[in-house]
Structure formats: C-alpha cells, structure tokens
C-alpha cells in the first residue's frame, strides 16, 4: 500500500521519461521552427552545397567555413542542416495528416456506430474500399491529377489513414452506444453532433488515441516512401523521412552517418510523440486523471 502511494503521489506517474519526452518533443518543434536561424547550411539552396564534399565523414570542415558535425550526405548536404530543415516538413506533413485523418476517421467511425443501419453500411464499405486502395496509387492519382505539392501529399496521406481510425473507433463505439448514458443524452435535447462528440467519442476514443502517434510515425514513413518514388516532397527539399529513406541505401556501406543520424533523429521524434500520446491517453481516462 505504501509503495503504491509513493508511486501515485511521489513522482510523476511514469517517472521522468514522460516529462523528458515532452521536453524532447518541444525541442523538436522548436528546432524545426528555428531551423533557418540555427542550421549552419541551407540544404535547400544549391549554392550553399558543395558537391565535392559529398559523403564527408563527421567532423570534416566544409568550404562554407563550418564543420560538418554529423558529416554530409551523398550530395554534399550537411546532415545536421538536413535534419533540421527536414524536420519542418516531416512534422508538418505527418502531424497535419494524422490529425485530420483522425478527425475524419473518428467522426466517421463513431457516426457509423451511432446511426447504424445504412449509415453504418455506407461508411464501413467506404472503409473497406479505402483499406484496399494502396497509398501509392492514391498518391499517384492525387499528384498526377492535381499536380505536385505538399498539400497533395497530405491529402493522399489523409485518404490513406482515416479508415483505420474509423474502423477501430467504430468497434468500441458499437458497445458504447448501448449504454444508458447515451440514452440519457438522447433524451436531453442534445444536438446529435454533441451526443457523438461529447458523449460517444470520448468514451470510445482510447484505443484510437493509442493509434494516433503510431499513425504519425506511419505518415512519416509513408511520406518518405512516396518521396522515394518521386511522389512526395520535391527531391531537392527532402523531409526528414525522405532524408532517412535516401540514407537507407547507405546503411550497409561504410558511410554509416548518412543513414544513422537522420534515422536516429526520426526514431527520437516518433518515440517522443508516442510517449506524449501515451500521456494524453492516460489523462483522458478520468480514473487516472485525479492522480
């Protein structure tokens, strides 16, 4: 009992990691925002890149007068700068797409469960349809018909991701709709949207909240894959995901730094998003909020 109370009261619930993860995530966001100011090089400006210094190992001094702390990639871009600049796009693309996809997916899933009947059938068949459509195909169609652009990639990612949320949340919401607090809400003159968003959704959302950070990670990876196929961000302005995907080819070569450092930056980013997400999920549960 005593140990339990110390656990509950003494420290933040999960020890220092969650706090750390929040700091790390905040640092990522700050670094992304401040990239132009703090990056030694603008990796998107061809004039600042020296092709002959491609694949320099960490510590080499470059013609730009600064040291390549983490080396350069196969085109001569400073890896530190690439990570910083790439973060901006990756964060934008992945967080926006995951957030919008979650919004759409959760709404669709909860509505399907709440209304049932043909609404459910229609939404769920749409989900089936979406799940069987490969992201690459969606991205191809979006980009070929609408032209390239970050918003198109975000669109493709949203289309690719919403269905997962819808399906997961619907399953839980199906059980929840039968409970009498929903009946009570129905009797109150509540707008349907309020029943769905204030009552049903919060009680069905927990597993989806676990999914969101994971899907953010997916979005980064998907965007990287798309970029790799020439369907993502412009090749000369790589996102962090694209930097990692490009670097991937160097994984087994001696030039470990091209792959390793951006990869670690990405793992750190997704891990901290995940940990913060876990914290959010815990706080959403009223039974643990009071602690």
């Amino acid at each position: 009992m005593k140990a339990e109370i110390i656990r509950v009261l003494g420290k933040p619930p999960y020890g220092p990691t969650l706090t750390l993860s929040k700091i790390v995530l905040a640092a990522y966001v700050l670094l992304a925002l401040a990239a132009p100011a703090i990056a030694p090089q603008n990796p998107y400006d061809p004039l600042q890149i020296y092709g002959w210094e491609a694949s320099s190992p960490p510590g080499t001094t470059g013609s730009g007068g600064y040291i390549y702390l983490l080396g350069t990639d196969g085109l001569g871009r400073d890896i530190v700068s690439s990570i910083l600049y790439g973060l901006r796009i990756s964060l934008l693309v992945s967080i926006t797409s995951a957030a919008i996809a979650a919004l759409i997916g959760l709404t669709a899933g909860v509505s399907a469960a709440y209304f049932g009947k043909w609404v459910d059938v229609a939404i769920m068949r749409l989900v089936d349809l979406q799940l069987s459509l490969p992201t690459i195909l969606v991205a191809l169609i979006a980009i070929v018909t609408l032209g390239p652009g970050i918003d198109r990639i975000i669109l493709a990612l949203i289309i690719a991701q919403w269905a997962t949320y819808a399906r997961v949340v619907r399953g839980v919401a199906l059980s929840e709709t039968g409970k009498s607090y929903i009946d009570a809400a129905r009797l109150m003159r509540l707008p349907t949207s309020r029943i769905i968003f204030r009552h049903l959704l919060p009680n069905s959302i927990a597993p989806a909240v676990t999914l969101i950070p994971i899907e953010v990670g997916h979005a980064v990876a998907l965007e990287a894959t798309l970029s790799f196929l020439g369907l993502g961000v412009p090749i000369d302005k790589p996102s962090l995901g694209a930097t990692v995907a490009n670097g991937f080819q160097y994984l087994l070569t001696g030039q470990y730094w091209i792959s390793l450092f951006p990869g670690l930056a990405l793992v750190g980013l997704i891990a901290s998003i995940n940990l913060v997400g876990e914290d959010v999920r815990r706080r959403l549960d009223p039974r643990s909020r009071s602690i």
Partner: protein
Amino acid sequence: QELRVATAYKLMTLDPHYANLNENTSLLSHIYERLVYQDEQLNLKPGLATSWERLSDTQWRFRLRENVRFQDGSPFTANDVVYTIERIRDFLKPPSGGFQSYVSGIKSVSAPDPLTVIIETKTSAPTLPLAFSSIFIMPKPPVGFRTTEELNAETPPVGTGPYKFAGWSSGETLKLARNDDYWGGKPAWPTVTFRVIESPAARVAALTTGEVDVADAIPARDVGALKQRGAKIESVGAARVNFLQFDVASETLPGVTDKSGEPIANPFRNPMVRKALAMATDRGILTDKILAGYGTPASQLFPAGLPGTSANLVASPPKYDEAKALLAKAGYPDGFNLVLAGPAGRYPGDGETLQAVAQSWARIGVTVRPIAAPFSVFNTKRAAGEYAVWYGGCSGEAVDIMLDALLASPDPERGTGALNYGNYRNEAFDKMLARAESIREGPERNRALADATEFVMADQPIIPLYHFHHIVGHGKRVGSYVMHPRGWTTAMQTLPATE
C-alpha cells in the same frame, strides 16, 4: 556444383522475341543463341553463323555453324533462321515488337542449303549482321508458329545455348541445367539458378552472406563494404549514355521563366545557352561522388574507345566563368529559372544527378527546380511535351543506332529520331550520319561516325553526363567474371574457382 546468381533483371517472359529488354535477353541468352555475337569491345564475332558476307547492296549471305543441335536433339539448320525471322516479322503481334525494327527491312530470306541463309533487304543495309547480334534463334516447329503463351506455359523453351531450361517462376527464379551437347564445349556449371532480387540492399546482403555466388547491379556505394567482407568486384563502362536533353523546338516551355517568374521564350533554341549549361555541368561530382567512381564522364554516346567514338571529345571540368560569360552573350546575364525533370530510381544516380546539376547551374545564375517522377509518369509527361529539360538514358548495339535514335531528325519513314524528344533537327548532321552509315563495317565507318559525333556535339543538342559502370560482385566459388559493356549477367561470363 551449382552457380547461384542474384540478378536485378526480372525475366518477364520465356518468349525470346517478345520484348527487347536486357531483363529478358540477359537471362535467355543461356538457352538461345544468336547468329552473331558482340564481344566485350562490341566487335562482331561468329555465333551460330560462322561467317557472313555482303553479296550486294541489298543482299547478305550467312554461313551457319555445322553440327549444332538444339537441346531437344534436333539439328540446327537454315530453316530455323528463316523461321525465326518470319516469326518476328510476320507472326508476332503487338504489343510484342521490340525486335521488329531489326527485321522489318528484310524483303526475303531463303535457305539454299541447310547451312546457308540468304537475306534480301529492301534498301541498302550495311549493318545487317549487327541486327542479328540481338536476335535469338528458335527451332522451327513442325507446323505454324509458336505463340508467346505456349512458350510461357506449355512447352519448355528450347535453344542451342549452353544451358537448358529447368524451371521458371515468373519474376522469381530461373533454373538452368548444363547442356552437355553444347557445340562450344562443356559449360562450366552443372546447374545455374538465377534469383531475381530487385532490391539492391537485398542483393548485396545475399552476396555478403554467401547465399549467392554472383550479384549484379551492385550500387557503387556498397562496393567498399562488400570488398571488406571478402567479395570480389568487377566493373565495366556501360555501352550507353545518360544525358540531359533540351526541348529545342517549342516556342515557350513549361517552367522556364526569367528571374522574376515571367515566362520567357524557349532559351534552348540558342546553342550558346546549351553550351553554357554544358560548360557549367560538373560531371566529376556525378561520377566521383554520386557514382562513387563507378562512372565515366561522358562527352559522347559511348565510352571513348568503343567503335565509332571520337578521341577528341573529352569531358572537361566545369568552367563557370566562361559559362556565365557565354550565357550573358546569349542574352541571359542574370540567368533564368527552369524545371529539370527525371525519372526516380530508374538509372543509377538519376535523382541525385538532377540535384547535382542544379547545384552546378546555380553557380551561373540558372535556378533549377529538379523534379523526379515515377518512370511511367515521367515518360507520359515527356511524351506530352510537359518538360523543358530532362534526364534520359539511351543504349544500343552501336553508336550509329544511338545517333540515329537520339540526334537524327525525327523521320518516321526512316525510323530515325525515335528518342529525339527535343525535336532537334540538323540537316548537315543528318547527311553526315547517313553517309557514315552507308559505309560498311570497319575503321572508315567508325571514323565517319566519330566525325559526325564531333560535329553534332559542337551544337550541344544534349548534354552527355556519364556512362555508368556495370558492377558485379562475386564470391569465392567464382574464379573470374568477365564483364560485358552491354550489361548482361550470364553464367557464361562466370568461371568457377579452381581448387
């Protein structure tokens, strides 16, 4: 002892006449053979034909090798050659058709005796034997023609080659067994298995762990690590070129604007602009950095030294100041903006090349927005004229074939300019090329081709970038591997290590 090969070439069909792609010909050359063989210097050597002579402008005679048997035991005769030509020319229906151009000029074929073939062409065809270096000879069936479906599914393919077909799973594996009756002596390996592994990383891994003895299309950047882990590496400059091509015909071009973003008239119609850009292109970065040394800077269509190349054309390091001056002289002192398009992941170093070029050109004030697209999208858009400058690749049996396709004025009648998407037209060059092509095989023809090349490259309709190298790695069980500039990967090139 089994030879295991990891290849990037995905064998798509067992019909040797279906599609003219290295993917198919590389693997099928174990089973089938050609009349004429191109050696490592791209010189013609006897294959199933022991000799050939030009009887007249439009007539060729091939003498066939004696005592050659197909793998099913039937003898190889002139009838099989006739059958093969007719199958390609008359029987196969599109979409198959990659080989049609080799035989479409043939008026008639006859077999006066079992070991002689006489070929009559519609017009003068000084390089007909070269065409036969691409055509696999199939045995004539008792009746009719074999269809592609039959070959893929029912009957195992039969040729005269050193290895017999033993099994195939589309896109995955090809199994071969030694043809003990091979006319050229006993082949080195009792059995050969080709595993199609498209991912470079997976090929490298398979070679590293010793799961395969040979792996082709090794990415240059992996060479160092592979050598460290004990693999041996062979490489050769490919008989091909990768280049930048300009649209030199259209009035205006998508994506080409002045520095303030206003559309401008097509600047690439001015040869000075093209030359300035060529001058400002740092090929050294491409070959030394992006291709990690496994590439040769290009200034013409084949690596220097191969037949028809010019020794005077050398790729020079970039001269930014001169280039900038030239650009100013052409009327663009501030430079301009353009979009440079290319396929993604089609050729070694393609995407990176676009960016390296952007880096170079930025130094003379030309701002480049590189865009990479999937190959099919890229092709569709290029065909639709949506690009101003693009990255391309071209390969062929000989320099003249490539000059014809890439730089000669487009002419459907003569079949020239097939790849001249930039619509470059130069009558003087066309004439020089036609004259060179009318000369028969030999140094004189080669010199004429070199002259034509020098002439046209002075106008810079394309900017040749590099000839990448084919890189093959092999393990301990392989004693030696002979590279071929056409980029084939075969068991015939592989000799076992002697214990």
